[in-house]
């Protein structure tokens, strides 16, 4: 047998329940793996080895006593550090939450624990989810497991890298404008941004509430399905959550109508577009039609996204005044308002930039000019996509317009950085599900295919991804670490 830490989630559950190995042995193997590679990757902000081991022992005891262990028994889950975990520090990769320990579990964490999953620790991200590389983490950037000189993508870079490097079985990320799919693509793993409302956001530390969803990052489509089904569902604590039916894995892919989004291909790096075209050939091989189409309102997507996301962020992040929780900063010598200002100097540059932009677009006189206009463009885009979905089952294109890039390449120019999100923000603006699936490499660097479907049509995404995963033969495991 290979190393335990190499196993996929469903193999781990089967192995532990079948008595091939104990949960404790499995967790120890994962912890050993982390010990071996973490110093090169920096995926984790906080590792809870003790908590993980004690949870594993509990599962082993349950197995011994023939009690129900749950569908995810024994798998280790890395959690993006913007999802609240009771008694485990949750920093959002920000200095402003350096000492913040939540008093409650996010709804998704409750679901995971209830089903026997083991919370392993908290994974790195760009501060508050704002960024595409983890370079904006206030601790340290995470490295790409396929080539340590390259960024892992972001903002859920820790979640992408840890799964690709087998530091955890699966992970949870959050996706506001591509933050699950970007690192999934850059790290050659599968990442799903569910339909807005499928997964409860309760406990996800808000960056832009109307856009974001929690979703899984995994090394196989099968693992992904297990995870999505556990974390989905209407939650009384989240007014925007909606009931949905579970996804199954063994559906035969019918003759689907697929369309490639032309603008996303032409805007891409040559190697990327070549790889996406060859993936689209696979769709034809399995009997789908494959047209090339245009999205008229596509060029509004990025400005609309950054306007709305920044507006919501400026308000969401207002609560960080260090009164009720936060970091160590004595109050002496300050009046309350100067203290607030001092506290908020502790935000990183990118966060400050978005708070400023957001405050500006919401201020009186500019509301209609920017915020309202962005909302209208968002509706326009959503409407156009919903119309397209009447004709097509799936819209495809590259997840990222370019392969992973080196550290420092885009950090000095915010616009350049924002531009890499062009393909992914569409799904967030429209509230539709989107998946990133590994389909190839360019000079050893991963390339992901993005598939989008109509709201709550995750089943179609999964059917297509599962077929493609089986028919595309690429390297699955990195040798770089």
């Amino acid at each position, binding site marked *: 047998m290979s190393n335990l830490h190499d196993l996929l989630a469903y193999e781990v559950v089967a192995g532990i329940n079948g008595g091939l190995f104990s949960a404790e042995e499995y967790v120890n193997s994962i912890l050993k793996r982390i010990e071996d590679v973490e110093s090169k990757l920096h995926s984790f902000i906080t590792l809870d080895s003790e908590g993980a081991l004690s949870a594993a022992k509990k599962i082993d005891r349950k197995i011994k006593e023939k009690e129900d262990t749950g569908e995810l028994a024994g798998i280790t889950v890395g959690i993006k550090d913007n999802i609240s975990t009771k008694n485990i520090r949750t920093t959002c990769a920000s200095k402003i939450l350096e000492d913040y320990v939540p008093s409650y579990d996010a709804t998704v964490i409750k679901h995971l624990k209830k089903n026997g999953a083991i919370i392993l620790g908290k994974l790195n991200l760009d501060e508050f989810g704002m960024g595409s590389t983890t370079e904006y983490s206030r601790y340290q950037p995470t490295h790409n497991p396929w080539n340590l000189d390259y960024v892992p993508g972001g903002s859920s870079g820790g979640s992408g890298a840890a799964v690709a490097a087998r530091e955890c079985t699966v992970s949870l990320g959050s996706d506001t404008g591509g933050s699950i799919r970007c690192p999934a693509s850059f790290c050659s793993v599968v990442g799903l941004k569910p339909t807005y409302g499928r997964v409860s956001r309760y*406990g996800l530390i808000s960056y832009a509430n109307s856009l974001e969803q929690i979703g899984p990052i995994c090394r196989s489509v099968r693992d992904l399905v297990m995870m999505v089904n556990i974390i989905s569902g209407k939650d009384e604590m989240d007014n925007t959550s909606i009931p949905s039916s579970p996804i199954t894995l063994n559906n035969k892919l019918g003759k689907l109508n697929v369309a490639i989004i032309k603008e996303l291909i032409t805007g891409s790096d040559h190697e990327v577009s070549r790889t996406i075209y060859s993936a689209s050939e696979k769709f034809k091989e399995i009997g789908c039609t494959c047209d090339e189409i245009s999205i008229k309102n596509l060029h509004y997507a990025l400005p609309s996204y950054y306007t709305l996301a920044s507006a919501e962020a400026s308000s969401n992040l207002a609560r960080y005044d260090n009164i009720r929780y936060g970091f160590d900063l004595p109050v002496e010598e300050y009046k309350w308002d100067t203290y607030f200002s001092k506290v908020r100097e502790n935000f990183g540059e990118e966060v400050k930039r978005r708070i400023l932009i957001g405050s500006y677009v919401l201020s*009186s006189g500019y509301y209609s000019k920017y915020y309202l206009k962005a909302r209208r463009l968002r509706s326009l885009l959503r409407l156009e996509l919903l119309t397209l979905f009447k004709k097509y089952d799936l819209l495809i294109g590259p997840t990222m317009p370019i392969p992973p890039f080196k550290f420092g390449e885009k950090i000095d120019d915010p616009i350049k950085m924002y531009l890499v999100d062009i393909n992914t923000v569409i799904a967030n603006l429209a509230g539709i599900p989107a998946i990133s699936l590994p389909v190839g490499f360019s000079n050893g660097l991963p390339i992901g295919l993005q598939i989008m479907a109509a709201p709550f049509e995750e089943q179609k995404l999964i059917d297509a991804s599962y077929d493609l995963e089986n028919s595309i033969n690429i390297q699955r495991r990195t040798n770089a670490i």
Partner: protein
Amino acid sequence: MSLVMIGLEIHAQITALNSKLFCSCRGNYRELGPNTNICEICCGLPGSLPVINQKAIEYSAMTSLALGCKVPDKIMFYRKNYFYPDLPKNFQITQYNVYGYSSIGVDGIYELDDAKQIRISRIQLEEDPGRIAYSEGSMNVRNSVLLDYNRAGVALIEIVTEPDFTSPKEVRQFLNKLSLTLEHIDVCDTLLEGSVRCDVNVSMEGGNKVEIKNINSFREVEKAINYEIARQSSLYSRNLKIELETRHWDDRKKITFKSRSKEEEHDYRYFPEPDIPIIVLGNDFVSNLKKRMPDLPNQRFECFVSKYKLSEHTSNILINDKKLADFFEATLKVHFSPTEIANFLITDFKSLIEDDSESTDYLKNLKVKPEHIAELVKLIEGNKISRITAKDILVKIFESGMLPSEVMNNTNSYKIADEKTLMDAVQSVFDKEKSAVEDAKTNSEAINFLLGKVMKFTNGRADPKIAMRIINNKLHNPDK
């Protein structure tokens, strides 16, 4: 007096709610230790989301209907962004109508008793901030203050009027009527400390509008307005400019003073609350609500007069004390004798509770229940006890919670109608009051004096009619 325009912005807590507006913490935060009535939602901990309290929507809609407002088919919430230490999220979830109607009530007309109409521009549902406890001096000069978030997130109804008032007296009439309305529709117990607050804007002679904040009880509003009118008149008469400003009411010194911060320059950056989707109330919402809604004070008054045949005076006393009116109707359900019960309640009963306590919830912990009063009135009507005795029995019930009949039997206080006993009592009085007896043969006033003595002799238990007959008989037929 010169032309005065006054507008009001009233905040009333929905004290009827068990929980806060967006979480399950208790709606009644009073008398709890600081920061013991809080959770991740009302403290605005990262990742928590507001969960809208459906009952709060109903109560605020009822208030809107009671104030003659329209309730739109769809409502929305907005974020009002500003920094203040008592505001856990540094934004308040409220409603806003500038980008289209979205608040729970709009365009209302509320009539004062003299038929003057006050326009209500909007009614909105929002969350209360926490409370700042100042040790001494204001927050700007002290190093620290204490924060208590027990109140944070309590449901508030904001009522905004047009500047239609022309005198402090009209404002007082309005606030009295409003309080009564809020009480009768069971939304707000306005007597609870801090449950109602009022901001006032005053302008004179078409001059600048001055806003007065921080008026923490309706009683103080009239005083604040009077002060402000005097202040502005004085400026006006000296040809001095009336500044557009926000002032605060100091209820110790009874003056308004200029506030330090430039509140009128705030840009609140309102935008739709993304965590609460648009709420569609539906077609039947308002009609269903109207069916369930308690009667308004004037409807109730009509009912008391026409259905229960009470006098307007009696009806008014009951209506002006909502809890007493409720108690009255609860008693009617046990024994339908409106006039007798109402009279008993507004006299003997009311004087007893007023002596007894200042608490606003006086009827809640009372040992006397409607059943007691019903039985007591039955005993009076059945001629079992005298009115005087009834009052004594009531005092005993107040203390013990015993049934009136029990008290009556224990204390032998049923009415004495037995001829023999009464004749003995009359004889004793006649023996003692010889001169009065002589007077009484010619003077009817003296007869009443003798009856009083008989009543006293029997501790008020003698049936006065029988006693009177015996006295008359004895006076005019002394041999018998």
